[in-house]
């Protein structure tokens, strides 16, 4: 067996050698000797080329079949549109049957109203009502168009000029709703890549504007200048390379509606100049209130108004109108006329409200003693309320929003709120005084403690203030005695 195998192999080998050495194998092509080994190499080359040309193995793609998609669509169960209604959602606010002045009528009874931000007492003022009536008769109610398409009425332009003249800025722009002012102005100036340092107690309008602008947001502790300085220092150190192109802003409110604190503007301006940031100031609750002629926080802190880059305010507070405005340099205002979405894509302010704002500013200019009265009321109530059992005053002394906080918080915001709502509803039912608890929407990121707010007006008399203080003392004592 082995021998025959060896013989066969030898024969095959001998034959192969002969074949390779045969004259045909020794062909001469172009003067090059072709040996037999070249055939083997040629064969190898062919095998390699064949393998390379094969497609590599990929697992086959299997898109979902029609039936599978239908099954998935049938199986899918969406969440219900709204979560189930709980008991807290059944809250009903008091319904007024008259105007929201210092004395109002609720359920047929007369009550003392501390729930309207009517700081100068303009609600029900005859001059205001007269000018609004003539505006309604001339222009109708609505303006029927956005500012770019025949919705600009001459009262709008007059109002913008009046506000700019009152504050001493080059120009101003009117918005048709107070809440939309901030959340349209911020995205026009701050985009992705810019940095904004904001106070943690700013209201929802500002928070929404910051979110829509997609910039980097850094919050600092409420009204704490050291925390602000640390944040600014950190940002400048981390971003020194992009200083030329990156816009940096500090956003604060002049008078915070979530806590009644006043921002220290002079220190903020010092920090701003040191670290090269721009300041956006929301003066909704301080315009027409602070400063000896009502020009706002800049006058109160003795800061020249051109040091603040952008000032916005809602007119639904001291001016007893609606809408909002923004003032600053001409470049800032002109830019907003085309890139601020709440200005371009929305109908303009009804003309009678613009006329109301002009009249309100005129009355304020002529009667600065209203501010003195408001100040006197504020300090009186502040003094009276410093001795309420269980509640302490947490707002600044000059702020017309008096903010009462629990001396001993229960630990959970919900329970705190229940207690405070109890106090407020008893104040209305038993003592006929309307006050307000701070309400937080589910979208609001602010985590400041909740409390009771009282809005003081220049129209309140001393007896109103004393009555309010007495009532709060009585009701608070009985509520805290129960629990």
């Amino acid at each position, binding site marked *: 067996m082995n021998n025959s195998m060896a013989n066969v192999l030898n024969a095959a080998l001998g034959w192969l050698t002969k074949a390779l050495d045969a004259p045909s194998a020794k062909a001469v092509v172009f003067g090059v000797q072709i040996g037999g080994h070249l055939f083997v190499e040629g064969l190898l080359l062919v095998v390699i080329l064949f393998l390379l040309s094969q497609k590599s193995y990929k697992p086959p793609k299997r898109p979902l079949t029609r039936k599978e998609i239908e099954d998935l669509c049938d199986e899918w169960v969406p969440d219900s549109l709204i979560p189930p209604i709980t008991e807290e959602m059944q809250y009903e606010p008091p319904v007024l049957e008259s105007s*929201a002045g210092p004395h109002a009528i609720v359920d047929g009874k007369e009550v003392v109203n501390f729930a309207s931000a009517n700081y100068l007492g303009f*609600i*029900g003022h005859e001059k205001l009502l007269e000018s609004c009536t003539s505006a309604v008769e001339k222009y109708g109610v609505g303006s029927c168009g956005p500012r770019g398409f*025949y919705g600009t009425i001459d009262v709008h332009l007059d109002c913008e000029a009046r506000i700019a003249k009152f504050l001493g800025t080059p120009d101003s722009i009117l918005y048709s709703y107070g809440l*939309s002012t901030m959340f349209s102005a911020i995205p026009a*100036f701050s985009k992705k890549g810019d940095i904004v340092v904001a106070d943690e107690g700013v209201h929802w309008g500002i928070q929404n504007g910051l979110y829509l602008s997609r910039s980097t947001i850094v919050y600092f502790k409420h009204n704490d200048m050291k925390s602000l300085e640390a944040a600014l220092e950190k940002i400048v150190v981390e971003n020194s390379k992009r200083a030329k192109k990156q816009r940096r802003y500090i956003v604060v409110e002049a008078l915070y509606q979530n806590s009644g604190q006043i921002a220290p503007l002079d220190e903020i301006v010092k920090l701003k100049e040191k670290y090269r940031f721009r300041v956006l100031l929301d003066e909704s609750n301080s315009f027409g209130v602070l400063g000896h002629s009502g020009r706002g926080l800049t006058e109160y802190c003795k800061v020249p108004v051109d040091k603040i880059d952008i000032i916005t305010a809602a007119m639904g507070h001291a001016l007893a109108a609606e809408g909002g405005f923004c003032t600053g340099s001409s470049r800032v205002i002109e830019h907003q006329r085309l*890139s601020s979405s709440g200005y371009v894509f*929305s109908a303009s302010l009804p003309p009678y409200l613009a006329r109301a704002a002009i009249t309100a500013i005129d009355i304020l200019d002529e009667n600065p003693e209203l501010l003195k009265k408001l100040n006197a009321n504020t300090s009186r109530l502040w003094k009276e309320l410093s001795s309420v059992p269980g509640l302490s005053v947490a707002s600044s002394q000059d702020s017309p929003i008096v903010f009462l906080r629990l001396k001993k918080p229960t630990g959970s915001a919900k329970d705190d709120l229940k207690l405070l709502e109890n106090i407020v509803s008893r104040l209305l039912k038993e003592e006929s005084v309307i006050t307000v608890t701070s309400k937080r929407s589910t979208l609001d990121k602010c985590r400041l403690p909740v409390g009771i707010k009282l809005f003081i007006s220049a129209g309140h008399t001393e007896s109103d203030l004393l009555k309010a203080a007495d009532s709060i003392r009585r009701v608070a004592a009985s509520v805290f005695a129960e629990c």
Partner: protein
Amino acid sequence: MITIPYLTALTTYFSYGLLFAFGQFRDFFRKIYDWWKSSDLQGYAPICLGLEDFYIRRLYLRIQDCFGRPISSAPDAWFDVVERYSNDNNKTLKRTTNVSRCLNLGSYNYLGFAAADEYCTPRVIESLKKFSPSTCSTRVDGGTTSLHNELEECVAKFVRKPAAIVFGMGYVTNSAILPVLIGKGGLIISDSLNHNSIVNGARGSGATIRVFQHNTPAHLEKVLREQIAEGQPRIHRPWKKIIVVVEGIYSMEGELCKLPEIVEVCKKYKAYVYLDEAHSIGAIGKSGRGVCELLGVDTADVDIMMGTFTKSFGSCGGYIAGSKELIRFLRYTCPAHMYGTSISPPAAQQIISSLKVILGEDGSKRGAQKLASIRDNSNFFRSELQKMGFEVLGDNDSPIMPIMLYNPAKIPAFSRECLKHNVAVVTVAFPATPLLLARARICISAAHTREDLLKALEVISKVGDMVGIKYMPVEPKKLQHGKHTKKEA
């Protein structure tokens, strides 16, 4: 979609290219000038970066006098346009005391409530004296008056939904409602031509956004199937909920939404429908109840109905109508309700009174007359324009009529020539419309009489010949098929 003739597309591209090149040329010189002159920024970054407002500085400022024209009377069928002049080549415009009385084809005054009305205005003045122009307070604090509650009941009854909630501004309604209803993990499918307020609200909510082709229920179905099968991006978990957002009438096209088909698709795939009736409430439908009435859709099938009062009711504000639980939930959570000042009481009274007039509850037939008048006016005007050879978009019965201009030079030409003949029109260009498709938009009102419309047609025809925008063949007077314009569905 609009198909644009080749020659027009070429000339439009050429015009824009020329303007763009010229603008870049001037910017180049401006850069040199600024480098040579020291800047006064002192280490701050410029507040508006150069690229962002290239379009504004080089293109928009040339034709700035066509936009933002101030008026000095009520925006009724005829109004006074204030004349302006410029000393520095249109960069700043100054008012003069001259006014010209023009025919108003631009304001949203569909039922003619814009000026002082015999029924509404006395009641508005009464409520002004009683409640004062503002309540200075939010709805949840102390700003709810009996007028607000009455308004919400009236609106709910009019729209045929169980309950409604009213806000002070239409734009804020959309921006503040969508974040409350849907958040991260949800999907919003919106029409490609939706209004900026809806886009802002959708972005502010944090949900994923997908777009479907304008008014195409078949594409909506395709997108829904794909998205439900795939789930959330990257993690592939199922979506928490899906909301489809459409508008009743699209304000730049004048088209009605294909609501019955869209509602059917959404029901099949269990998605919620959000209908924005900003332009259609009060203006279309037999009794003015909007696109649901016109197209025969049951209001119980539309989950959330939103609308504004600025257009047909001559006031301001917006509303949301839905089930009682939905409205109760919104009252507790919506930021616009809790932080925004309540709607001005005289404006609320204007809405209540105009609703009463429309429904005929004031004891006269004016409401029905107004509705019939706007329908007849719209149909008459549209058919006449089409006969003259203009390319007009929009469906029958819709009071909005865009006339295509295309070329950027025709925009100021059309606008200024019409103003010379005392007709005020609105022209719209980029970025409110796509770059090539600039148009002039006409809004018809019930306050326009037949003579007003004939005068408008005469002027528009003359100016159209001068400017050269009669793109369609002029229809001979006897053959009139009443077909649509050249747009593919």
